[in-house]
Structures are given as structure tokens and as C-alpha cells.
């Protein structure tokens, strides 16, 4: 039986991790590979880098980070942000990433998921969906892009169905309404999506406590939970979250570590 994953997400801008990350004894608090390694040692089941560099010339920097991370982190590595084409995806995979998440680019080019899945296999194509509840309409969410700023008019549930049909091997599902609130995941959204698709669904947006992680898995049927700030600010450590999940009967990998 597959174990439930806990994934810390690091926002990377111009080669540095942004949003406060706190480890007391780090020599360089903003260096992505060093932080990734630290999280792997704390029991992260996977590391997610989200590149939020606006300028296209920042791409080379990201590849260098992926390469340096893959040389010292021995858990799976997912990379998202700024991947516009199959060629971009190839570069990120060759640098040592295991999976690549596409978001805005998939909305702009509906064939992108299909062509990447054909070329590299479903297992490395993650569709990242930012969903916002449609006001006044229970059970409806709209896909938004560009970090939640731009509405697309797409129904999130139909969009996810389409991407999975096209070969996406995993869904990274972020509730924009909950993102950054630490008020818990959108369980209703998770439940609807996990009932419809056969590929793993990663819950994102709203993690505040270990109880939120447990609810995402037991009530929302998520396969993995992703969080940023509660880990970065050291409010909860990854191994403590996993110990709580295990105590609640959720199958997780304990005593993991990197090397």
C-alpha cells in the first residue's frame, strides 16, 4: 500500500529561497540545495521547488539549483514554475528533477500536457491547478493562473479531468482561497477531485497544523500534503507532523532521512 507523502515546498526567486525559512544553524539560509537537504534529513518524502522568477533569463539559475540539489538530496525532486514547453521540461528533467509541474503554460497551450506525457512518461508530468471557489455556487471552482491573479473561466473539476485524460500523472491541487491562511485545506474540493481521478492528488493551500494534514488524507483522500510556511517558520517540523499522522493511523514513512 502506498504511503502518504509530506512535501515541503520552497519558493525560489532568482536562485534564492524566498519566504522566511528558519533553521538556526544553517550557514546560508537562502540556498535552495542546502534547505532541500535539510528537509530531506527531517523526513520529507519529496522536495518541491516552485520557481517564481519573473525574468526568462533566470532559467539557467534554476537548472543549476536543480543540478546541485540532485547531487546531494536522495529523495524525489519536483520542480514547477516557468516551464513553458516540452524543451523546458526536458532541461529540468536532465538536470536531475524527477517530476515537473505545469500550470499557466498548460492553460495557454492545452496540448502541452499531452506532448510532455508522450515524450517523458505520465509519471513525470504534474498538472498544477490553482482553484478558487466561485462565489455563491457551492461545489464550483474556477482555475486561476499567474499566482491566482488571473481568472481563466475554466471549471477546475473539468480542467483536471481533461489534463488527466491527456496524461498528467499527478495533480497538485491548490486552494487559492486557503493559500497562506493556515486555516486548513479545502476538504470539499479535495474530496470531489480525489473521487473523480485515478492519479495521485497532492493537497496544497491552507496547512496550519498536523490535524489539517490528517484531515486532508482521511477526509479529503489526498495522497500527499504540501506545505510551505508551517515548515519554513519551524512551527511544526516534518518528522513531528509525520509522527502525528502515524498516530492517527495514516500510513507514512517514519525515520526516513536523506543520507
Amino acid at each position, binding site marked *: 500500500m502506498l*504511503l502518504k507523502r509530506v512535501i515541503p515546498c520552497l519558493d525560489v526567486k532568482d536562485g534564492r529561497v524566498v519566504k522566511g525559512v528558519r533553521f538556526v544553524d544553517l550557514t546560508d539560509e537562502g540556498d535552495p540545495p542546502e534547505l532541500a537537504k535539510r528537509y530531506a534529513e527531517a523526513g520529507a518524502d519529496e522536495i518541491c521547488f516552485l520557481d517564481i522568477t519573473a525574468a526568462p533569463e533566470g532559467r539557467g539559475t534554476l537548472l543549476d539549483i536543480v543540478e546541485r540539489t540532485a547531487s546531494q538530496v*536522495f*529523495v*524525489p525532486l519536483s520542480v514547477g514554475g516557468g516551464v513553458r514547453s516540452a524543451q523546458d521540461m526536458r532541461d529540468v528533467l536532465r538536470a*536531475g528533477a524527477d517530476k515537473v509541474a505545469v500550470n499557466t503554460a498548460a492553460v495557454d497551450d492545452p496540448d502541452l500536457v499531452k506532448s510532455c506525457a508522450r515524450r517523458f*512518461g505520465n509519471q513525470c508530468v504534474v498538472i498544477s491547478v490553482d482553484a478558487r471557489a466561485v462565489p455563491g455556487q457551492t461545489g464550483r471552482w474556477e482555475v486561476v493562473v499567474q499566482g491566482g491573479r488571473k481568472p481563466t473561466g475554466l471549471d477546475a473539476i473539468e480542467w483536471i479531468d481533461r489534463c488527466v485524460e491527456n496524461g498528467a*500523472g*499527478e495533480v497538485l491541487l491548490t486552494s487559492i482561497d486557503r493559500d497562506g491562511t493556515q486555516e486548513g485545506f479545502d476538504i470539499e474540493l479535495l474530496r470531489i477531485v480525489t473521487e473523480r481521478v485515478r492519479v*495521485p492528488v497532492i493537497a496544497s493551500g491552507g496547512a496550519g497544523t498536523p490535524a489539517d494534514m490528517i484531515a486532508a488524507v482521511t477526509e479529503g483522500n489526498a495522497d500527499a500534503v504540501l506545505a510551505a510556511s508551517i515548515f519554513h517558520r519551524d512551527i511544526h517540523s516534518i518528522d513531528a507532523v509525520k509522527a502525528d499522522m502515524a498516530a492517527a493511523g495514516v500510513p507514512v514513512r517514519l525515520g526516513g532521512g536523506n*543520507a
Partner: protein
Amino acid sequence: MTEPIRVAVVDYGAGNLVSIRNALRQLGADVSVAETPGQLKGAEVILVPGVGASEAAMGRLRRQGLVEPIVERVRAGTWFVGICLGLQLLFETSHEDGAQMLGLLDGDVEVIPGAPSLPHIGWNRLEIQQQHPVLEGLADGTPAYFVHSYVPVPADPAAVVAETEHGGRFASLVAVDRILGFQFHPERSGRDGLRMLQNTLGLIAADRPAPAEVTA
């Protein structure tokens, strides 16, 4: 001081070699990449990684002239480590696409029986079927990272060191003499995965011929 183990990682264009090369280097192995038969020379262990379909992989190995040299060297006693697709290629026929493979081990490759979802991606447990030095220091139920849909079905049940359950059960760790096969990715399985690779290098080191005795 023992000399580093000389590992030839076979590059036949099936997935990136970055992770496995880095993991072996971190463990002190002398890693080279082999794209041609000549580059297998001097290797104490031939390591075949890989993700993807078997027929395409066999086609690339054939075009690079690697099939015969690998089979001959392994039959002559060179160690072989297969990871994921590299393990599956050890067997005879793949039911994925009918590929005829290396045939170093008896048995075929089939889709995971009764799988609730495919591909099988993520962390799952190794259920130890028999003690083996590669698992030294690791407990029954140790998690490992998987990415695959197909699995080997060894004709000889004694070849199965560990099994894993995903709907049905399948062989996730296979060992026969100097052949080792991981269906999971030890290079992506954290500390436990590195321990298995370290145990593997240790096994190969212990198998080195004793230094020739000086006769008077």
C-alpha cells in the same frame, strides 16, 4: 585501504543518470558512464538504470552493441545491478510490448496484478522474504520509492528477496548470485536507499579475489 568499486553505469538514453551516479559517488564508488561495449571494460559491476518501455530500451541497447557484451560479462561473473527497467530487462519476455530481453534470469515481465492505480508511484514498503546482505541493517517494512507499472515475475521463487503490495504483490528486490535487481529506486529512497547501495558495494568488495599469495 580498499580501492573504490569500479561501476559502469550504462547510458542508453532511458532516463537520466544523474541521481544514481551522484548516489554512488557519494558512497565512494568509481563511477563511469558506458555507452559502448569498450566502456564496460574494467568494470566490476555493470549497472543498468532506466525508466520507460522495454522494447524501446532493448532497441537502444542493441543499436549500441551492448546486449551481447553485457550478457557475456555477466555470465562470466561480472556483477550486475538493475534498477527499475534495468531489473526488468534481466528477464525473458515483457508482456508490455512483447520485447525479448536479456534473458539472464528465467521469468517474464507483467503489469502489476490487481493494481488500484497505475503507474505505481510513491513510497511503499519492502516485505522481506529472505535475509540477504543487501538488506543488512534494514528492517522488514522499510519504505522505498517506486515509479513503474510493470514487474518481473521470476520463475524461481528463491530469487525474490523482498515483495511489495500494490493491489497484488510483486517481487521488488531480486537476487541471484552476482545479479541484483531493484524494482524501486534506491537512489531516491533516502537514507535507507543509500544504505542498500552501500551494502551492494560492500558485497562486491568482499567478493574480490584475494591478493595473490607470494610464494617462496
